[in-house]
């Protein structure tokens, strides 16, 4: 059988002005998944959002807003799953200790990881050589 995995490997400067570029790439990829039977417009928005949130996380917390650093993103698409990895070279954090937002309190911050966890099927953040990786995957069938 013909193998049709796609891998997109992107490195962009550690600056928020590139969020829309990365989000747009995510949306375009989602719209190309011809075997996906769900609502593709919604999937496109969700991929745009998780890429945006993960990149902001890397820019602000891992790469310490250093504009000289790079954010490295790898998107892998196979027939049954979409996997996004966002690499950083920061100190890292324990994703399991980040609380869900308290919906009865009005906080300006603290919804990013919650949104990622809500929209993806599995999310993990782990240490690798030279840094950390946030890995998010979504089943496509």
């Amino acid at each position, binding site marked *: 059988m013909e193998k049709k995995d796609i891998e997109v490997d992107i490195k962009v400067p550690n600056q928020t002005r590139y*969020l829309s570029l990365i*989000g747009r790439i995510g949306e375009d990829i989602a719209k190309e998944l011809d075997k996906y039977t769900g609502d593709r417009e919604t999937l496109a928005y969700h991929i*745009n959002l998780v890429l*945006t949130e993960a990149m902001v996380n890397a820019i602000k917390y891992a790469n310490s807003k250093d504009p000289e650093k790079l954010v490295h993103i790898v998107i892998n698409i196979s027939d049954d799953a979409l996997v996004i990895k966002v690499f950083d070279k920061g100190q890292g954090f324990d994703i399991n200790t980040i609380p869900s937002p308290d*919906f009865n309190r*009005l906080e300006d911050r603290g919804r990013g990881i919650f949104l990622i966890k809500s929209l993806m099927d599995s999310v993990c953040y782990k240490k690798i050589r030279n840094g950390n990786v946030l890995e998010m995957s979504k089943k496509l069938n």
Partner: protein
Amino acid sequence: MSMDLKTEMKNDIKIIYVKEERLDAHNSGELKSEMQRLFEGGTKNILVDLKDVRFIDSSGLGALVSGFKNAISHQGNLKLSSLQPQVKSMFELTRLHRVFEIFASASEAQDNF
């Protein structure tokens, strides 16, 4: 960084039209500062119209929450109008649709201050 915001005064309501496709971590700080500046300057009623906004992230939501808290602390009002469906679903996911008064259009919102 400069965000495209059009403002208009209608009766005693300051309407801010966000003329951007995205309200995200790159530009939402500007909207947050503008709302803060207005409330601190004595504006009581602000309507933020999101008709052109196709995408909002957690920072965009956070900027609006910040504006809402500013409104409360200055005895003012902050309401929202013209949310696109995907944007509205983000308010629902984060339960913020229970916090904000959201109207279908800017004109409908103006009648409800």
